[in-house]
């Protein structure tokens, strides 16, 4: 499975990458620092799952999700948002924008695994 992790924090990208390997999803992991960079990668590469942060410079996660959902080329790719935002209205906003699942930082490998299984199940 090819996964792209989008986060402006290099530490978080590293943690997510490492966690994905530990839970058995480390086949191929791509990285982007913001939504704009991720869109450029998606234009040229097929991806099975997107894991994105919300608060990023250049293009934030919410705008990125909306752009993904608006592009027929990759509008069906499952998206998990991993963010510090924990307010109910923020979660609803993200889900309405097209996020399939939502994780509040800090997360455990078990939570990430369950969420991936959930969204990949939805995809099937």
């Amino acid at each position, binding site marked *: 499975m090819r996964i792209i992790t989008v*986060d*402006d*924090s*290099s*530490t*978080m990208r*590293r*943690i997510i990458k*490492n*966690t994905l390997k*530990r839970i058995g999803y480390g086949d191929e992991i791509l990285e982007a620092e913001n939504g704009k960079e991720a869109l450029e990668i998606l234009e040229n590469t097929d991806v099975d799952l997107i894991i994105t942060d*919300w*608060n*990023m*410079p*250049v293009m*934030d996660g919410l705008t990125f999700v909306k752009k993904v959902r608006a592009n027929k080329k990759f509008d069906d790719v499952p998206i998990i948002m991993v*963010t*510090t*935002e*924990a*307010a*109910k209205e*923020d*979660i*609803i906003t993200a*889900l*309405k924008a097209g996020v399939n*699942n*939502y*994780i*509040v*930082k*800090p*997360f*455990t*490998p078990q*939570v990430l695994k369950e969420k991936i299984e959930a969204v990949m199940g939805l995809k099937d």
Partner: protein
Amino acid sequence: MADQSEIDALLEELSKKDSEELSSIMDSYEEKDESEIQDKAMEHKPEKADFSGGDVEAEKLEGVRLPPKEHRVIDRLDEINKESEEKVNKLFEKLEAISSEVDEVEQLIENIKPYVNKHKEFMDFFVEHFPKSSIKKNYEYFKNIIDILNEIENRVNTIRDNTFDAMDILQFQDITRQKIERVISVIKALHEYLNSWFASDYERTPRARVAHTIVDESEKDKVDQEVEEIIKQMQRGEIK
């Protein structure tokens, strides 16, 4: 300034001179007085205050010297964020190196295990068929070695678990970074209010949206449950 005796002497001298001489004397006195005042003033003139810290460039703003870049609040906080991210990445590298070493140790144990097991099978057979043989004592030693090997394997797993836990805890850096970003946003508001006193390059740097809510760790389980519930409600179409 001339004192009274000097003035009296001057008046006496003036009374002896005609008007031409008088104006000449007055001119020379005024010139002397002015230049003396200038000299005195230069001697006591205070040096310009220098907040630049030496070689650092300090911006001038309508005659006011601003603090150097490394003393400016937003730039300093950005620098702190950057430094902590770099250090945490280095820490992560070390943890990954430990994890990799642990994997290798585990692999070595796995490589040894078939030989040990084979040897144990042989000794089991031998002790069973020759109970009075002296090999029985060696067999006890050998069983101790197997126990130690199992203990090493357990310890290796504990080291791996602790290493992974430490990696997970490093998420604090990103959360702390976002907390600092929130502080920066408050300072930015102050900056706008105080205009140029907090002048900085930060407006030209693209910034992440500031986090509205950052969960307190003691409430994390409750928040996770709420997130799950909201997702389920959305999936059931209960939230429009």
